[in-house]
Each structure stands twice: as structure tokens, then as C-alpha cells.
């Protein structure tokens, strides 16, 4: 295997791996808080579940970038084209925004979701407002997704 291909795969890994970790940590934080609320009031399962799901999107964004890179590289096809080291590094760079921002924003969005679950615990009717706070954090994951996407699509193989 060429070094270029290796770097390209590293890019795929960075995008899906870091963003996935971020989402896993974020949803875990929110899930713990949600479980606490549901212990007290099982009727709040649905509402808290929605909030727990919010930090889960970063992982999906990472997956999207990963899949786009894989389809560009023809991983699903028979053979992977040769890449120069430079091209491989470009994939690695393209994976970084969604990976790193996804990691960090996932965790912090999880914290915002925990706080919002606190809203649901005390004010069950306020799901609409509670959803918005974590969603603001997600903006930056979306922006990094856009940048990663445009970078990936900009690489000429």
C-alpha cells in the first residue's frame, strides 16, 4: 500500500473516529442525566430522549465525511487508485475539522443537553425551549461539516 493511500485512510479515520467519540461522550453525559430524571418520573422518557439524541449528530457528520471520502477513493469498488503523499495528506487535513470540532462540540453539546434535561425535570412543558440551547452548540459542528465537505470535494483524485 502506498503512503498516500494510508494518509487518506487516516483522514477517514480522523473524521469518523473523533466525531464519534465526541458524540458518544456527549450522549453519555446527557443519557446519565436523562436516566436520573426518568427515575423520578418515567413519563419524561420521550422528552429526555430527544435531548439525549441531540449531541449524537456529530458522529453522523463524521460518518458522512468518512463515507464521501470512501466513495471518492472507491473503497467500495474493486481497487483503490494510487494517491500521492500530498493527496493523502489533503484527505487527512479535510477530515480534521469535522473530527476535532465534532469531538469537542459533542462533549460540550452534551453538557448543554444535561442542563436542558434539568429544565425538563422542573418544567415539563418547556421542551421546545430546552432543545434550542444544545442546538446552538451544534452550529459549529455543522460549520465544520461544511468545511470538511467542501475540502473533500475539492480534492482532485
Amino acid at each position, binding site marked *: 500500500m502506498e503512503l498516500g493511500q494510508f494518509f487518506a485512510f487516516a483522514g477517514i479515520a480522523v473524521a469518523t473516529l473523533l466525531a464519534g467519540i465526541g458524540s458518544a461522550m456527549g450522549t453519555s453525559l446527557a443519557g446519565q442525566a436523562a436516566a436520573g430524571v426518568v427515575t423520578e418520573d418515567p413519563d419524561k422518557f420521550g422528552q429526555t430522549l*430527544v435531548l439525549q*439524541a*441531540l449531541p*449524537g*449528530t456529530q458522529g*453522523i*457528520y463524521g*460518518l*458522512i465525511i468518512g*463515507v*464521501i471520502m470512501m466513495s471518492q477513493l472507491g473503497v*467500495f469498488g474493486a481497487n483503490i487508485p494510487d494517491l500521492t503523499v500530498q493527496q493523502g495528506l489533503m484527505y487527512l487535513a479535510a477530515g480534521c475539522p469535522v473530527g476535532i470540532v465534532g469531538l469537542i462540540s459533542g462533549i460540550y453539546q452534551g453538557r448543554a443537553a444535561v442542563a436542558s434535561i434539568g429544565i425538563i425535570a422542573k418544567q415539563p412543558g418547556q421542551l*421546545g*425551549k430546552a*432543545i*434550542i440551547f444544545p*442546538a*446552538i452548540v*451544534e*452550529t459549529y459542528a*455543522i*460549520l465544520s*461539516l*461544511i468545511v470538511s*465537505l*467542501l475540502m473533500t*470535494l475539492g480534492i482532485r483524485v
Partner: protein
Amino acid sequence: MAIVKMKKLALAGLISDEQAVVQTLHRMSLVEITDVKEQLSDEQQSIIDMQQVQDKLEQLDNDISRMKYTLDFLERFVPDKKGMFTGKPLVKADDYKTAAQKLDELIKIYETCRDFDEELTSIKGQRMRINNAISQMSPWVALDTPLSEVRDTRFVRLVLGTMPVVLLDGFKKAVEEDGIGCYIHNISQDRNTAYLFMAFHKNDQEILEPILRQYEWNDADLAEYSLKPAQHIEQCQHELEKLERSENEIIRQSVELTKYRLDLKLANDYLMIQKQRVEVLSDFAATRQTFILTGWVPAERTDELQGRVSSITDAYWLDFEDPVEGEPFPVAFKNNKLLRPFEMLTEMYSMPAPYSIDPTPAVAPFYFIFFGIMVGDAAYGILISVAFFAAMHFMRTKGMGQKLIMLLALCGISTAFWGAMFGSWFGDLFHIKPLWFNPMEQPMLMMVVSLIFGVVHILVGIGLKAYMSVKDGHVADAIFDQVSWMMVLGGASVWLAPLLSNMLLSTPAPQLEGAAQIGLYVAVAGVVILLVTQGRSQKNIFMKVFSGVGSLYNITGFLSDILSYSRLFALGLASGMIATVINILAGLVGMSGINLIISIPILIIGHLFNLAINGLGAYVHSSRLQYIEFFGKFFESGGKAFRPFHIETKYTDIENEEAV
């Protein structure tokens, strides 16, 4: 596009008509009652006697809690079946009256249930005690002697006790070494403890005692038992069976009582309605012969109210009054049927201030479009619409729930539309050609489309602020603060259009050059207006200039607002991408013959998951664009929602509220 005009109402009448008036107002759900006593002097307040109301409330509360207790008790044995589409039972007004007549009977049932509950608790306690006895006795089962016979004789001490298994051998050795005549019988032993019978001469007691302590001997506390251990256990088991039987009997009878469940629910709701009618009296003021109430009523329905009141009695005084300039009144919306579901988005954020505008008509089209773009799959859209239109048809929901269902049903249509435009039907499953373009092949075009929507949305937001200023009579402010910015943003967008088209879409657009020139002039004119006017409230000439120039810095805020709309592009692409991934996964398994057994579940579960997660994302982010980017431009919050005096029930829905 309007906030409903409200009128202040004051109604006075004879106390003999009070009940009828309250009943009518309750049924009409038209008047928000305000506390009349706030307008009275202390002296006037002192003659109002609330004691009777308090007593009545207490009685009702008491009965309501009894009904609820009974229902909760029965719920423990036969959970109330709640299907997704069944909801609360729909009942007639007469049913309440029938149930209310049975109230005495129902209170008897409550008492029965309370006794049952106490008995069950006592059974639980007894069972625990017996189980303790059994576990205490069971190690001694092998002792085939009545415990009453294990008592000291004249010279010999007979004892039962326990010792840790690990120490047993050491103990035996120690006894042997000391030469004490001692009979040790190991009755049973578990992992840690040996259960022993010992017999020794009373004279040896003193020597033996320290040894026993050393080897952690514990006397078994069995003084209260006299029969053989096995007999005791048998007795306990017998008692347990008896308890079980009486428990089953109670459960059986309780289950039988569930046939009163509907009656209990009806009685509960009947009492709740009565309670609401008594509770409201605490906001009235009454003398021995008359009462007066105040409240808010929608201006357009005053005649209806007057008519209803006059049909009760002639002896009344009713007065409607416009709110004093600036006096806050409760806020209600008036929109047509299509816009009504979108009211919920506004309500969720905050009610607008009484003298501002209802943003719902402006929110609705953008929310509709944005949701559609963000999910962006025709098949998903059809699924959403079908599911929620079905829910609307089969479920009886009220308030927010109903609005949400209608909102999603409508947004499904938009989703289907945009999905068809982008050629996404379950992603690329069927390879259907897009009606417009495929965002995955032309992402930059998608990005530009998103940003154009953003510019339009923000221009509308600023425009609404201008409209509000003009409505309040501040035409100059509207031109200086809002129109100027609209010129800057709109002009700059047109001016940059050919450049962006060339850069981002790689399509030169010479036909736009002329428009771009005009756009530039408009933008520059806007900038000039801003420079000249933004310092108008400052006295100092330097501050005037500084404020003018400084205001241009706001352009960065608008820029970030517009870029925020790129989420339309990102989320729209995301759902398409995940759909593609799911299709690839299914494709890897194979789409023919026996492989379909695996690939079809992958497709179904995968697409449902994608639909759920992207539906949630679209709902959240479309809301966000309204709340932050859009409302930030004009919305004045701080209104209090109009809450008319209305009938509320817990367990049942009423078919015809007018008859209750």
C-alpha cells in the same frame, strides 16, 4: 397577522344568578377572569367573605383526591389500557351527572380500597416476619427434637448456637486439650457458619465460657419456639399460604372493582369541573345579594357574550372597555387554519408583547421551506405526511399536541416537494432524476441557494421591524434604522451575485452585471443613510460621526446570520448521505433472491432511523433559524398568553362542552 384585540369586561349581577353565569362562562371558554379584588380598597375587601368558598373547595379537593387514590389503587392491579390512538374516553355531559349521583357509592368503594390497601400492607409486614422466622429456623431443621426439650437439666447445660466454620476444628481441639467433657453435634453448616448443639456439665461452664468467646460462639436465640424446627417451618408455610390466599382474595375483589373505573374517572372529572367553578369565585367580589367579576374578552366576541348573559337574566350590568393606552392585555392569535399549527412555534419561544405583531404568518412559510430542505427526501416527506395526517384523523388531541401533529403533517408536504426537486427518494435507492439539481453533485449551488434563503429571511425580519416602527408612527426610524440596512444587505447581495456566481458556481453571469451596478448604488446609498443617521441621538458632533461609522460594524452580525443558513445545505446533504450509506449497506448484502431477507430489514430500519434523526434535526434547526436569526431582528417578547376560564378534565374528553 394579528394579535386579537381584547376588551376589559366588568359584569355585575344578583348572587342568585351567579352560578348560572359561572357555568355559562365556563362553557364558553371566552373570558379570562382577573382578580377584581385588586381594584378594591381594603375596607371594601374586608366585607368579602371567602369562608364558604374555602370550605367548598376543601370538600371538593377531598373528594377528588379520593377518586384519584382509588383510580391509582386499581391501576396497580389492572393497568388501564392506553392504545396509541385511543386516548381518553369520549363522554357525554350527561354521563358526568350520572356518575356524580353515584358519588356516595364511589366513596364507599374508595373506603373499601383504602381498607384493602391497609390489609395488603399488613400482609406484606406479616409475610416479612414469617420469612424471617423461616430463615432463622431452617438451619435447625435437622434437629429432630422439640425445642422446648433443649433446656438445661439439673447438671447438664444443653445449648444451641453458631460458630464460624473455620474456627470449629480449633474449638474442638481446645475443648479436648482442656479435658472438658463436652458433647458437640454439628446440626448443619453453610458456607460460613456451623450450627451446633452442645451439652456439658454445669461445673465446666466457667472454663468453657472464655473458650467459647474466643471461638466466636453465639447463642441461638430460639427461646420463643417450643416445637420441632421442622414443625415450626411447616407452621410458617401454612401461615404464608393463608396470607397468600387472603391477598389473592383482595386482589380478586380489587380487580372486580375496576368495573367502576369509568365511573370513578367521570366522578373525578365532574368534581374537577365543579372545583374550577368554585375556585373562580375567589376572583369575584360578592355581597350578600350581588356579585361582580372582571376579566378580558376578545373584542370581536363581546356581543356573543352579552347575548348569552342576557339569556340567563335581565338583572345584570355588563360593561366593555378598551384597555388604557399601554395597558398590557393577554395575547391571543388569530390566524387561518393553515397558519394555526405554526402558532406553536411562536408560543414556544414567547408570546409577543401586546402591542407588537404576531410573527406567525411570517414564520410559517420559512419554517415550511426550511424543514423541507433539511430533510429533503421525497419518500420521507410522503411518510411523514401520511403518518401525521393519519394521526390527526385518528387521534383526539388538543392544544400543543394537535398543533405539532398538524405542523409535521404540513412540513411533510414541503419535504416531499424538495425531495423531488433534489431527486432524493429514499436517497438514491431508485435513481430518480432530480427535477432541479442533485445537491450531492452540485454542493456549491445548494450552498448558494441556502444563503439566498437566508438573505430573504433576514430582509423579511428587518422589514417586519420597519413595519412595526411605521405602525407606531416612527416612520423616520423605520427608514433610518431598517430600510437603510435592507438597502445595504439587498444591494450588496445583488452586487456580489455575479462575482459569487463566477467564484462558487464557475458560471459567469454577465447578464447580471447591470443589476449588480444598481445593487452597488443601492448599497452605497444605504451606507450613506447609516453614516448620517445612526448618530442622530448623540449630542456631540464627534459622537455623531463615531456612532455612524460604528454602526457599520453590524455588518459582521448580518454576515454571520446569513452564513448560519448554510445549515440548510449541511442538514439537507446529511440526510441524503445517510440514506446513501444505508443503500450501500443493503447493496453490499445484495438486493436479489435470498439476500433480500437481510437487505430489506436493513433498508427499513436504516431509513426509519435516518428519518427520525433528521426529522428531529430539521425540527430543531428550523426553529433555531426562526428564533435567533429571524426573531432577533424584530420580535418583542413579553406578552402573557390569553387563558380563558375553560373546562379542564383529567381522565375523559367531553363530547359537547356546552352541555356540562
